[in-house]
């Protein structure tokens, strides 16, 4: 089966996020007073697998081996069957 995979990579709680604080300061320049700004990276792809669990296991492996750095990152995975 073919699946859509979506990986959202964020910084672990408490990790400094310079990109987010820069965005928050820039929004303040436009008079938008926002708080708790964060950013995350999204990576999307399709893959073939036997079932959703097998697809998820493959994506977990990809996160551990390349997509994330376990020292600073958390990740969330969404797996959906494609319409194909």
């Amino acid at each position, binding site marked *: 089966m073919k699946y859509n995979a979506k990986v959202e990579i964020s910084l672990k709680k408490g*990790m*400094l996020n310079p*990109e987010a604080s*820069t965005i928050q300061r820039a929004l303040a320049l436009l008079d938008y007073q926002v708080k708790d700004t964060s950013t995350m990276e999204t990576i999307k792809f399709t893959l073939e697998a036997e079932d959703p669990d097998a697809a998820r296991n493959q994506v977990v492996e990809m996160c551990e081996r390349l*997509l994330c*750095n376990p*020292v600073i990152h958390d990740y969330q995975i969404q797996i959906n069957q494609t319409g194909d």
Partner: protein
Amino acid sequence: MKVGIIRFPGSNCDRDVFYALELAGGQPDYVWWNQRDLSNFDAIVIPGGFSYGDYLRAGAIAAITPVIEGIKDVVKDEKPVLGICNGAQILAEVGLVPGVFTLNQKAQFICEWVELEVKTNRTPFTHLYQKNEVIKMPIAHAEGRYYTEYIDELHDQDQIVLGFKGDNPNGSMESITGVCDLEGLVCAVMPHPERASESILGSDDGLKFFKGIINY
């Protein structure tokens, strides 16, 4: 002393390191990212640059190339491995040194001369310096803020190699900007010793890094 200089697409300090290693009396040679066997080298340097465009994270893609498997063998053979700037980021991504070098506190690229303190001289790269000696070298990076979950272990095991003296330009944990593995043979530093290898460059304080490898 044959020293391999690793080249990835996007490496850009390779020729500077070559020059500095020759100046220090070594015999450098370039090695491309897809070479697996590095057994004919006595030491390895991973130079700075922007391997693979810093895509994903600085060093992340270089970290899974065949030459890294070769470097792991070099480490097993107890030969010195030095990573400078992007090379340091790569060694941290591979896990050959503890922690990460991530986005600077102020999210900007910093290029300036800094004063550094040599925190340990037990490594091949720093054994020609005095412990706590203050030296001058340039930094040039956007992702150089050091972070580790194991700061106490680093202190206990004498794994902190370089620290910023005075100002902490990128917000690194405890001003750390160079670390090594347990044995001290794998070393990752954000400052550029090759850019401080001759007094005409502004300082020759970095040359001892390369002389240290050659005399090891």
